[in-house]
């Protein structure tokens, strides 16, 4: 289906600006959004147009991630508003997780991975040669798809990050506060010494969230955090995200559209081109993206006609 859109694009080179209106969708070739190479604040980030420019935590500019010779994602330009939940949705293999991992330089750990373009975090280019990837990761926490508590006690799991940083304060207090913020304290306060792996899947994931927030990050990246959880545990995580956004900026990758619709403020939709590289189709306030998508591709995806 992208073929026709690309052809449309070829015939209408002038149409590279997306305007927000209620024209019938078919008159707007979706691919134009992707081809809008100049990252005008109006296109992908029109989403957060009600926010001041300094309220963006991340600004991605023409980001392209390659694994060896394979381009996993290309032409990704968007901005992530502070203290909001930003969801990244899209079909499997479109590079959602790749984009997420490039935000805290976890891609550095993948042999052969390279990130081109610019990713600014609070205005600073995190791929600047002088920037220490470890420092980046201390500010930008991450929660993974599969809960991965360390095979240590619940207490030691939460205290892991602060200990790395040589935390000098009252560790008991910090552990309790982190577990409370992760809505796990009441369930584990009597068994802080038992192994983190003895918890249920949903509890393990909240433990991982507690572990991430114990180092007081600025941003929490969540890579399909609920895909291994049952619906009730999923709902608890979503409620938790809602509480956490007061203090943190959350970016969540999900393949669950309902989750994005329920739990996020802003949604970015990625899809895959013929070259198997993922690209950004559109980004908008969640409600608008799900009710009045600008792109045909988005509409097809959210209505279940594709993906």
């Amino acid at each position, binding site marked *: 289906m992208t073929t026709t859109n690309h052809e449309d694009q070829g015939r209408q080179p002038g149409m590279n600006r997306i305007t927000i209106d209620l024209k019938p969708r078919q008159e707007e070739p979706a691919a134009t959004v992707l081809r809008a190479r100049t990252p005008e604040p109006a296109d992908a980030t029109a989403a957060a147009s009600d926010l001041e420019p300094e309220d963006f935590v991340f600004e991605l500019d023409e980001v392209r991630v390659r694994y060896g010779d394979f381009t996993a994602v290309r032409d990704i330009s968007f901005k992530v508003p502070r203290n909001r939940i930003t969801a990244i949705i899209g079909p499997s293999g479109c590079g959602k997780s790749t984009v997420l991992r490039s935000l*805290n330089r*976890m891609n550095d*750990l993948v*042999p052969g991975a390279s990130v081109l373009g610019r990713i600014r975090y609070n205005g600073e280019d995190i791929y600047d040669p002088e920037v220490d990837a*470890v*420092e980046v*990761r*201390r500010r930008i*926490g*991450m929660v*993974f798809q*599969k809960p*991965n*508590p*360390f*095979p*240590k006690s619940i207490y030691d799991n939460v205290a*892991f*990050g602060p200990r*790395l*940083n040589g935390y000098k304060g009252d560790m008991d207090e910090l552990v309790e506060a982190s577990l409370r913020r992760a809505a796990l304290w009441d369930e584990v306060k009597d068994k802080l010494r038992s*192994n983190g*792996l*003895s918890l249920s899947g949903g509890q393990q994931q909240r433990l*991982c969230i507690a*572990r*991430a927030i114990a*180092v007081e990050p600025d941003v929490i990246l969540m890579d399909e955090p609920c895909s291994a959880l049952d619906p009730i545990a999923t709902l608890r995580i979503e409620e938790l995200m809602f509480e956490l956004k007061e203090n943190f900026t959350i970016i969540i990758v999900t393949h669950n559209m309902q989750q994005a619709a329920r739990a996020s403020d802003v949604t970015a939709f990625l899809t895959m081109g013929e070259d198997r590289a993922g690209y950004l189709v559109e980004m908008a306030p969640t409600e608008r993206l799900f009710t009045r998508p600008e792109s045909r591709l988005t509409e097809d995806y959210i209505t279940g006609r594709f993906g």
Partner: protein
Amino acid sequence: MTAMTGPLQRPPLKTSGGNARRRTAFNRAMGVVLSAAVLLALIPLVLIIAVIVANGLPAMNWEFLTSTFNFSRREPGGGYLHGLVGTLYMGGLAALMSIPIGIAAAIYLTEYPRQRLAGLVRFFADVMTGVPSVFVGLFVYTLLVRQIGFGTFVGALSLAIIMLPIVVRSSEEILKLVPGELKRGSYALGARHWQTIFRVTLPTAAPGLITGAMLAVARALGETAPLVLTALAAQSVVLDFQGGGQTALPLLIFREARGAFEAGQQRAWAGALELMALVLLLTIIARTIGARSRYGR
């Protein structure tokens, strides 16, 4: 899509039609063959244990465990305390030398698997595993014994050389089992590479690493050939680090088992029992630690 098979076309549930009988018979026959193979493989093991216990137990007593050679080795009495001390002394030293280096090398192999040096280390570890232990003895003899003489240290060194490749390869396999998601979890919290190794990788792998190391120690304790050329012999308990001869249980067994005295041969049987019990003990400890908390509990 595909045409559904009607219920009437399905074979009956009772296995009588077609080649069902032949398949059942073949299955049963293979079961018998495999069980027989297991039993055959167990025969030598059981025989060795039985013979050692049967011959060693009569000569085994408190005196044997707690005393050294009597004045006359022609007579019954006396024991292998000096051999036990030498075995534990050299085994302990060898463990101190080979386990840290072996685990460090294994960390290198798993953390930097793509380096050319890693391939080289892995290759030489494999080659070393296959080197006959008497060559190791000759190597240490040529390199060190001719300069500094026989003794505990050179004996321990030859044992350490035998243990090293075993430790490296077993540790590498264990370290490879540490889930990448745990390491990523650590990196995502801002841990540096060495912090991840020391706080996540090694603690997670610890039970397995201990098991591998114990099995390497058990292997080294039974070695005889390299010790003949490095530790040489001793008549009483030797605590010197280097300089005099040293002895070990396998050396005493070797020496008295081929001796002419009935009493000596009896002691050799008891010594064999003692050594076997020691190795068995180490193996059981290793397995217990390994079984507990493979990953979690």
